[in-house]
């Protein structure tokens, strides 16, 4: 069931609480109905001082990166309410605040449910003992081992490539060999051991792919399942489509990870309030990271690389 999620500042109890009093007078805000904890759409915050209000659309401003929609609002006051124009001017000054940004992010969203389970497949004494010794991020990572596409760094770290593997495609190494040889593979890893931990601090799994290894090959695993289905493939009418079409999803996710300029904003979700981090997507998507992409030392990206960029370019030609 979808839930209405409303900026907390836009849930009010009286006209005085409204951030934008003009909107409260001639438009709507949300009120939480105490009887059923549902949001009620009402226009009853009007004080009755405004007789009519008309909104006339103007030509949008297309000369900027993101077009701006414009309109002119004309309001007329009730004559019997105001003594003179001085009082009318005072009322307007209190009601309309110029040059202040009012935000509205009301949306309806079906919140995904998460099911968690820990599975014990079989007992592997040696590997289980090794987990007590090695840091979490150096242990075998199923997501990297089972990743089907050719990504040298993902394979190197996932399979803990050693100097003795040079003649062998790593994905031919079985899971049982990885488990049995784990401490030796760590000791003979081709890169630095610190790299294994550091690169796995932030893992971006941005491909819908069928794993090439079975999770049942591992002695234990923890699994999370989300009720909302897989996002891929994205239909062309989706808002997400340009991100996938131009392979900019990785840029966006990387920007979210890097962005320290997020703001904290309170939202009413059902009857509860929750604080959420808010990232300005327009700012993220118009930064230089949109063009230049390079993996940081603490990032590992699982996505198909060169092939798609070329394909899109050719298609568009």
């Amino acid at each position, binding site marked *: 069931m979808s839930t209405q999620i409303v900026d907390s500042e836009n849930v009010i109890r009286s006209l005085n609480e409204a951030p934008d009093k003009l909107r409260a007078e001639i438009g709507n805000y949300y009120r939480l109905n105490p009887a059923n904890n549902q949001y009620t759409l009402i226009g009853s915050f009007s004080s009755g001082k405004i007789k009519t209000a008309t909104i006339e659309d103007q030509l949008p401003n297309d000369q900027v990166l993101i*077009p*701006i929609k414009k309109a*002119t609002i004309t309001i007329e006051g009730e*004559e019997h309410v105001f003594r003179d124009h001085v009082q009318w001017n005072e009322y307007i000054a209190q009601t309309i605040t110029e040059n202040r940004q009012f935000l509205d992010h009301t949306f309806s*969203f079906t919140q995904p449910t998460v099911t968690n389970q820990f599975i014990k497949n079989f007992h592997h004494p040696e590997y289980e003992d090794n987990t007590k010794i090695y840091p979490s991020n150096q242990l075998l990572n199923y997501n990297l081992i089972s990743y089907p596409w050719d990504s040298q760094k993902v394979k190197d770290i996932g399979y803990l490539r050693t100097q003795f593997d040079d003649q062998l495609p790593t994905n031919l190494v079985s899971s049982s060999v990885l488990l049995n040889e784990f401490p030796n593979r760590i000791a003979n890893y081709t890169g630095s051991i610190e790299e294994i931990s550091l690169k796995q601090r932030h893992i971006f799994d941005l491909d819908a792919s069928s794993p090439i290894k079975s999770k049942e090959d591992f002695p234990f695993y923890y699994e999370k399942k989300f009720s909302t289905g897989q996002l891929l493939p994205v239909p062309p009418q989706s808002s997400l489509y340009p991100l996938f079409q131009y392979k900019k999803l990785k840029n966006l996710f990387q920007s979210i990870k890097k962005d320290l300029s997020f703001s904290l904003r309170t939202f009413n979700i059902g009857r509860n309030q929750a604080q959420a981090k808010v990232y300005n997507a327009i700012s993220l998507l118009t930064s230089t990271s949109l063009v*230049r992409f390079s993996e940081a030392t603490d990032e590992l990206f699982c996505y198909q690389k060169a092939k798609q960029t070329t394909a899109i370019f050719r298609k568009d030609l």
Partner: protein
Amino acid sequence: MNQLNAVRFLADMRSQVDQSSRDIKQIYNNENCESFLLGYKIEKYLDNSATQPIQTYYTIENNLIDTQIKYGRKYIYKTKALVGIFGSSYSYTNLQVAQSEADPGAPTSEKYWATVDVECQPSFQILEYEIDSHEVAFIDTPMLMPHATLYGRKDKPFVNFMLQPRFFTLGDFGQEDPAPVGILRPSDERIADLYELSGDLRASPDYFTGIYEVYRLDTPPMTKEDFANGFLTTVDESVDVGNLDKNIPIDRWEIDYARFTDRIIPNKKYYYAFRSLTYHGTPSQLTEPIEVELQQDSDEFKIVSKHYSYPQQNTYTYNKKAKRLIKITPNIERLLFSKEESKDDWELDEGELVSSDGSGKAFKIRITSKHTGKKMDLNITFKLNKDDTFNQT
């Protein structure tokens, strides 16, 4: 090529944002913004979530599998949904207000009017909010308590135990399973806490490798916890075979039971209990105690054993009726009704049996023993139950 792609992407995104953005009428009508699920951010913490996460996953898939889990440590996973919202930001400019009735620039014929321009900009935001927090730990599954058999030899002052695993849970027969992790010693509590996080709470032989703990007391235990101070040793399912005197090297053989031999003082009772341990040391429940006595006579030893039950802590209430021990006779004035005018004209109300002048509501009667001098006080109050005879008058 990257730059070209970026430009084309921006053009498409611009068009997308423009189509999805609302005008001021839609905002005033509280119409919903367009939104979409971008993916999930899963933060993984070790032991507690007060520090930085040790790992963060960003995924667009509908599941996540994590194999990077250390044995015996607690992990906390915080799942956050990343939601894209095409919200709105608007502001008012160019406010014009009627200053007088004869205003030449008035847009209407009304006396009081005002006009203002409003600009609506798309506010494309990525919202990150927590939808789930879950703790998990990997602890191996404990076994059921072991099965112990004992025997002796009449020529030696020993008691021998054979310990074997039990593979069936009571739950298989429709009865309640016992709590699988046996909490006895302080270190067991941490294991039990983590085991609660591991999910499946049934006992299982998957991680059992034939190790048993032996506990012994030489005084009768009052509760199971008394055995915490009686740990003796651990034994496993192997025996050393060989004889160095005969140049046969000692070799360790695996067998399907564990053997424990204890030399004890004859004619004294001992209390034994056992637990099975998994490979990583997760204990089972403690067995019921066995009381063992090695009886010695002129030429042989004999073992007497039985199951020992912990004494029940009973609470007793002792009653003794005093009807035949003491007789209290009231004074004659206490037997008269307070307002008795004649045989058929009297009144009796609550409290009047005790004191006719209303000075008190209870009698205190002190009984002193002639033999010991001990005193006992009886505080007596009366409750009046009126029957039909009261209403007849």
